[in-house]
C-alpha cells in the first residue's frame, strides 16, 4: 500500500480531494466545448454528404484506408497506455507510470508520422483543394467539399493531438520530475488522460466520416 503525505490544496479548496474532483469536472466542462466544436464541423459534413452522396462517395475513394485504420489502432492503444500510466500513478509505481507515459507520447508521435505520410500521399493523389487538386470523374463540383472537410478536420485533430503530446511532455518533464504526481494526488495526470482519450474519441467519429465512404 502506498504511503505518502497529503499535499496542501490551493486556498479556494477545503481538501486536496475536492481540488482533484474539481479539476476533473473542469476538464469535462472543457470537453463540452470541444464536443460542440468538432460536432459543428461534423454537422457540415453530414449536411453535404446527405445532399451530395454520390459526389462524396467518388471523392472519398482516394482516401488512404490503411493510414486511417493504422491511426485508429495507434490512438486507441495510446488511450490504453495512458490509462495504464494513471493506474501506475495511483499505485505509486513511478517507473511504470513514466514508461507508459513515454509510450503514449511515442504513439502520439507515431500518429503524426503516419498522418504526415498520408498527407504526402494525398498531395500525390491531387486531393488538396486549390493547392494541388484535380476533379475526379463523377465527383462533380461538390466533391471538393469532402476534401475541404478532410483537411480542416484532420488538421484540427492533429493540432489537438499535438496539444495532448505537449501536455504529456509537460507532465513528464515538469510535474513528475518534481515529484508532484503521487498516489495521494494524481489528478493532473487524470485530467491529461481525459483530454487524451477525447482526442481519440474524435478520431472514432472522423474515421467513418473520412475512410468508410464509397468503399462498396
Amino acid at each position, binding site marked *: 500500500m502506498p504511503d505518502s503525505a497529503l499535499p496542501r490544496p490551493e486556498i479556494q479548496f477545503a481538501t486536496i480531494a475536492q481540488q482533484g474532483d474539481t479539476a476533473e469536472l473542469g476538464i469535462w466542462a472543457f470537453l*463540452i466545448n470541444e464536443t460542440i466544436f468538432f460536432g459543428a464541423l461534423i454537422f457540415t459534413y453530414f449536411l453535404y454528404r446527405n445532399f451530395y452522396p454520390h459526389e462524396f462517395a467518388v471523392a472519398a475513394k482516394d482516401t488512404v484506408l490503411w493510414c486511417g485504420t493504422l491511426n*485508429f489502432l495507434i490512438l486507441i492503444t495510446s488511450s490504453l497506455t495512458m*490509462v495504464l500510466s494513471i493506474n501506475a500513478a495511483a499505485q505509486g509505481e513511478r517507473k511504470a507510470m513514466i514508461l507508459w507515459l513515454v509510450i503514449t507520447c511515442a504513439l502520439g508521435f507515431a500518429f503524426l508520422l503516419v498522418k504526415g505520410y498520408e498527407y504526402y500521399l494525398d498531395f500525390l493523389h491531387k486531393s488538396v483543394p486549390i493547392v494541388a487538386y484535380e476533379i475526379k470523374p463523377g465527383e462533380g463540383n*461538390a466533391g471538393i467539399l469532402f476534401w475541404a472537410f478532410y483537411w480542416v478536420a484532420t488538421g484540427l485533430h492533429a493540432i489537438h493531438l499535438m496539444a495532448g503530446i505537449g501536455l504529456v511532455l509537460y507532465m513528464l518533464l515538469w510535474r513528475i520530475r518534481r515529484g508532484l504526481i503521487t498516489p495521494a494526488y494524481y489528478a493532473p495526470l487524470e485530467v491529461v488522460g481525459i483530454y487524451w482519450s477525447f482526442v481519440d474519441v474524435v478520431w472514432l467519429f472522423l474515421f467513418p466520416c473520412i475512410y468508410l*465512404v464509397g*468503399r462498396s
Partner: protein
Amino acid sequence: MRIEVDPRRAKALPFAVGWAAVIVLGGVSLGTAFLGIGVWAPIIQFGMSFIQTVIVYVLFMRLKGPPSLKWIFAASGFFWLLFLYGITMTDYSNRRGWPPPSAAAPPVLETPSARAP
C-alpha cells in the same frame, strides 16, 4: 499516512478488454463499408462510433466515479448538438432550390482558345 488505492485503478484487465472491444467494433464498422448495404452502412458505422465512445468515456475517462455531475457535462455536449443538427435541418430539408443542381454538374474545362500561343 496510508492512501487507499482506487479499486478501479488496481487492475489492467478491464481496460485491456475495453481496448479490444473498441477494436472489434471498429472492425465491424470497417466491414460494413464493403458490404454494399447502402444507407445502413453509415448508420451502423456511426452507431459503432457512439458505442465506442461510451466505452472510452465510461472506462478510460472514468465517467463512472464521483463527482456524478460528470455524466451531465459529458452528455450535454452531444445534447446541444441535437439542437444544431435538428433545427438547422428544418431549413435544409425543405428549402426550395436546395441542393443546387450546379453541384453535380461536370466541371467546365478550359477551352483551348483561352491560351493563345
